[in-house]
């Protein structure tokens, strides 16, 4: 039998033995154990090392608030650092290791930091490491040198880099009543609400429902509280309208009664079932929330309070009653309130020797005296613990007489031999969720605790959360809250009857025992009472300054143990009451949540892929794909051994020589329909559309309201009231939203519907001298000659039996056609065109060749319409109608938008016959060592097969005036400098004779 496991008792399954390792050593425990309880049962006292001084630390708590016993759980290569051992349910094969120690937990070199002692006081790093003011170590050098070592010494666990193979999932839930916490209050609330027929969700972060009933040893309705809880859970389980979520931490209370919760679905399992997520992220939209989150017991602050073996009283009680483990054989308690007496009795019952109860209060009630004697403990009323003894485990403590009214110690100290010291410094309601919205908690001087703020959202509190610390009150408040939340009326049915240990809920206002030695307030961060007083001396007296200066409350427990004692010490130093010092702001999450769980279903799948109808064809035919926003588009269709440049040059050349075809399905397409469609387009585009004939298309330009260029594309008039607008791929969504905005908000009188039809149509652009011949050979039902299908004309016909719509327009500068068909027929039409093109030398081309041909033509895209350019900058002023106002027309002539030194679109030719790079700059004078005075930059560049030169488009200051002049490309990032000629952006076929045919 393990040294500390009791013979009987506990809610563990003693018949099931579970094997696990900690720091490589094998241990066993039982089903129902946490890593903490199992190790404790095995006699382990040392669980971790503190952050700054690397002091040895044992278990402080039994739940989520544990600050010391942080471990890393390993699943193969995958590491999960900083997990409280108290929250790890053991499973066969569990591997856990300790952290922040080298070489081992027992012998940690970092403990040398303790020698630094007072030098390493709060905020010391602000005062030093600045290094010399002159010389080679001035500036940031010296600090960065020191920082290197500081960073390595800091940090808790080590994160892994192996990808996490787990699955995470999101779940959206709706309910009438969400009950957070399943103690007596929460259970009653859930039951009452469910009985009213409300949709109820009950969540508790623990593996078992029941909260404190799980281990309190009280009796409810004549049975042990735990059995009562189980029975109540059983009644809830049967209900269709109730969802029970164990192992689920509600961690965030957001606006609109939206709560975020994390369910640990398989963390306690050796292997998850197929498809089962490790964790599930619940986004819960609740009608009303019942907050029944209970309370935390507080430590007391005294020298040596961090020694392994010093533990919270209720935690010890939990270990004994819930897990059948005793934290020690000889136990002493130290308290400022009555609740520890119940713990003493429970531990006694579980088989420990309770050697003493040290109570700071001089007068202890008779009831408590009775409990002390029931525990066979010596009662030291009006005493305080002033020191603890031992190394990596407690061996004893020292007590002295104590006056609770003024904190004075007197008399000789007395040693007590004990291997476990349990402390209780009073209780703080778990008000985190209620406070997250920023409402101020209210200090209750009787309870010596912050009580929940007035609700800022629809929630109702119940139980210890409200400061009602007895089970009977919890039950009554729970039922009332559940009824109210479900819209029911008060019930006259009798409440369950509670038999509980008596006790006064109000502690003595004693937080710290000032004696010689380090007294810890924030255990993990090693913030001592002296640090708090130093902060006071240096003026960091506001509670938020205290926190930031000392890092009190910034550790993984987020002040759950330390906040109130820290405040109390500061309040005393200031001579002010605690509420005037205030409390720090509560923030989500309530307890730390894995980042994977928050990514949820997007873990490993950040964004969907958007595919054109011909996508699979492209892949099957050797295309290299390029991601453009969410879309995938062919970049090149490379042949074996070709470079990208060789491929696009071949594709572009073949297109200009015979014909090429490219997938343009990604272009944004918007159906603009209705009696006012033409009028609407006149207002939206800078040029006229009402004059466009049915069966024709026109190139259009849109500006933003501020007068800068927004987007361009062609719009086709398919019917009197029926237009098909195309936009650039990148701006499709933005343009759509803009149109909808104007129709809904600005011009609701216009009868127009706009509908995204991007996905309705597959588009193939086929261009080149042979393009018409190819169409001629495969299109039926319409002629495609110049008369029937002139430039910007539209015809309807069929290809391979599929209805198609063909518009003659050109981006490449060649005689070209866009062939649209229903997306479901896209590949069929595409293949038919390719088949028809074979005799003509048709090539497929990708975005690179498309880009090349558009650069040769001097067409603009998103690289030039970049949100900073005007129509004039891009030489599109010819499109600005003077006959009508349009979006942006009123703003486009402001001084800054017409000033001559703006960047304007030009063409560049490389004079040294070397390639350009996108993003290179242009200068008038070359200075490779100290580049300066940029006059512009390259927006797009390529090798031009048509010109047999390296060319580029660029935006250059006063560019138009520079046509024909020379300058230099200056690209220090890629060390590319050289002479260029500035020319017009229309490199190729400037009069458009090729595309007009």
């Amino acid at each position: 039998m393990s040294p500390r496991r009791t013979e009987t008792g506990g809610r563990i399954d003693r018949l099931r033995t579970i094997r696990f390792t900690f720091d490589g050593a094998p241990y066993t425990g039982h089903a129902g154990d946490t890593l903490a309880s199992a190790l404790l049962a095995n006699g382990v006292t040392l669980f971790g090392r503190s952050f700054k001084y690397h002091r040895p630390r044992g278990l402080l708590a039994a739940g989520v608030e544990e600050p010391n016993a942080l471990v890393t759980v390993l699943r193969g290569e995958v590491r999960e650092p900083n997990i409280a051992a108290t929250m790890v349910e053991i499973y066969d094969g569990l591997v856990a290791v300790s952290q922040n120690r080298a070489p081992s937990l027992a012998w940690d070199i970092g403990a040398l930091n303790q020698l630094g002692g007072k030098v390493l006081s709060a905020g010391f790093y602000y005062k030093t490491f600045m290094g010399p003011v002159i010389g080679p170590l001035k500036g940031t050098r010296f600090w960065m040198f020191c920082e290197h070592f500081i960073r390595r010494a800091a940090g808790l666990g080590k994160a892994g880099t192996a990808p996490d193979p787990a699955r995470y999932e999101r779940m959206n839930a709706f309910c009438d009543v969400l009950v957070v916490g399943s103690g007596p209050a929460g259970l009653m609330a859930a039951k009452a609400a469910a009985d009213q027929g409300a949709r109820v969700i009950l969540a508790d972060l623990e593996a078992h429902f029941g909260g404190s009933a799980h281990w309190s040893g009280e009796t409810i309705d004549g049975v042990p509280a735990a059995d009562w809880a189980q029975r109540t859970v059983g009644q809830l389980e049967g209900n269709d309208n109730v969802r029970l979520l164990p192992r689920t931490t509600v961690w965030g209370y957001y606006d609109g009664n939206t709560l975020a919760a994390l369910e640990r679905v398989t963390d306690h399992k050796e292997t998850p079932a197929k498809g089962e997520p490790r964790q599930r992220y619940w986004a819960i939209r609740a009608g009303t929330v019942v907050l029944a989150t209970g309370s935390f017991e507080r430590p007391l602050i005294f020298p040596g309070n961090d020694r392994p073996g010093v533990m919270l009283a209720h935690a010890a009680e939990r270990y004994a009653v819930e897990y059948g483990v005793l934290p020690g054989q000889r136990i002493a308690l130290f308290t400022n309130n009555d609740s520890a007496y119940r713990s003493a009795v429970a531990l006694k019952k579980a088989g420990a020797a309770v050697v003493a109860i040290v109570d700071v209060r001089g007068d202890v009630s008779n009831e408590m005296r009775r409990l002390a004697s029931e525990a066979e403990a010596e009662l030291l009323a009006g005493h305080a613990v002033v020191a603890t003894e031992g190394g990596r485990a407690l061996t004893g403590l020292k007590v002295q007489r104590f006056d609770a009214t003024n904190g004075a110690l007197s008399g000789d100290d007395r040693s007590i031999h004990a291997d476990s010291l349990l402390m209780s410094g009073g209780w703080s309601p778990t008000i985190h969720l209620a406070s997250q919205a920023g409402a101020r908690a209210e200090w209750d001087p009787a309870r010596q605790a912050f009580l929940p703020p007035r609700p800022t959202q629809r929630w109702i509190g119940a139980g210890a959360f409200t400061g009602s610390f007895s089970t009977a009150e919890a039950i009554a408040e729970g039922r009332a809250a559940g009824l109210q939340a479900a819209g029911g009326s008060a019930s006259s049915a009798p409440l369950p009857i509670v038999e509980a240990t008596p006790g006064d809920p109000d502690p003595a206002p004693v937080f710290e025992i000032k004696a010689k030695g380090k007294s810890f307030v924030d255990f993990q961060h090693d913030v001592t009472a002296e640090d708090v007083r130093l902060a006071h001396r240096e003026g960091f007296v506001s509670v938020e300054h205290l926190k930031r200066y000392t890092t009190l409350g910034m550790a993984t427990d987020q002040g759950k143990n330390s906040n109130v004692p820290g405040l109390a010490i500061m309040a005393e130093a200031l001579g002010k009451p605690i509420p005037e010092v205030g409390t720090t702001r509560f923030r989500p999450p309530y307890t730390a949540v894995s980042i994977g769980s928050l990514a949820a279903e997007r873990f490993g799948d950040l964004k969907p892929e958007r595919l054109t109808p011909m996508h699979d064809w492209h892949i099957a035919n050797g295309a290299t794909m390029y991601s453009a926003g969410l879309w995938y588009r062919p970049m090149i269709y490379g042949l074996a051994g070709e470079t990208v440049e060789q491929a696009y040059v071949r594709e572009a050349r073949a297109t200009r020589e015979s014909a090429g075809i490219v997938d343009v399905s990604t272009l944004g397409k918007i159906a603009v329909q209705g009696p006012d469609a033409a009028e609407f387009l006149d207002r939206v585009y800078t040029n006229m559309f009402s004059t466009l004939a049915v069966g024709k298309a026109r190139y259009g330009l849109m500006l933003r309201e501020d007068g800068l260029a927004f987007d361009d594309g062609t719009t086709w008039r398919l019917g009197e009231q029926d237009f098909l607008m195309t936009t650039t791929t990148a701006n499709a969504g933005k343009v759509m939203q803009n149109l909808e905005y104007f129709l809904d908000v600005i011009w609701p009188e216009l009868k127009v519907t706009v509908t995204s039809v991007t996905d309705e149509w597959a588009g193939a652009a086929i261009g080149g001298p042979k393009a018409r011949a190819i169409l001629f050979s495969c299109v039926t039902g319409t002629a495609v000659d110049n008369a029937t299908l002139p430039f910007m004309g539209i015809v309807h016909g069929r290809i391979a039996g599929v209805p198609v719509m063909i518009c003659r327009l050109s981006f490449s500068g060649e005689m070209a056609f866009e062939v649209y068909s229903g997306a479901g027929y896209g590949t069929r039409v595409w293949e038919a065109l390719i088949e028809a093109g074979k005799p003509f030398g048709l090539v497929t081309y990708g975005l690179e060749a498309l880009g090349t041909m558009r650069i040769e033509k001097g067409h603009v895209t998103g690289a030039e319409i970049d949100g900073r350019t005007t129509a004039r900058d891009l030489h599109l002023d010819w499109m600005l109608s003077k006959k009508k106002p349009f979006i942006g027309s009123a703003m486009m002539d402001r001084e800054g938008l017409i000033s001559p030194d703006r960047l304007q679109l030009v063409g560049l030719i490389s004079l040294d016959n070397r390639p350009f790079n996108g993003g290179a700059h242009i200068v008038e004078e070359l200075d490779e060592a100290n580049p300066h005075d940029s006059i512009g930059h390259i927006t797009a560049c390529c090798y031009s097969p048509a010109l047999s030169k390296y060319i580029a488009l660029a935006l250059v200051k006063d560019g138009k005036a520079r046509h024909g002049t020379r300058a230099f490309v200056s690209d220090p990032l890629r060390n590319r400098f050289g002479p260029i000629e500035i020319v017009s952006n229309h490199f190729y076929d400037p009069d458009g004779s090729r595309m007009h045919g």
Partner: protein
Amino acid sequence: MLITCPYCGPRDVIEFTYQGDGNRERPQPASQNLDAWNAYVYDRLNPAGDHNEIWQHSGGCRAHLRVVRNTLTHEVLSTAFARGGHKTESRS
């Protein structure tokens, strides 16, 4: 945060796109009053408190809504179609 779309009912903020200050008045299209245009495009009321604003239910019915929302508490006080018509009061 939840916004009650008059058509779709209460929906998570994730379904909406913010379109800003709803107090702005767009000048007549042909207006040459540059000050008015500047004010419309650039100036915002930006109050700390109740704010009249435009949201699009872009991840739902795509209607634009006029929403009165408190910028200190994020409480949504009322919603209505920007085109006019149905209005939903949320303040209890």
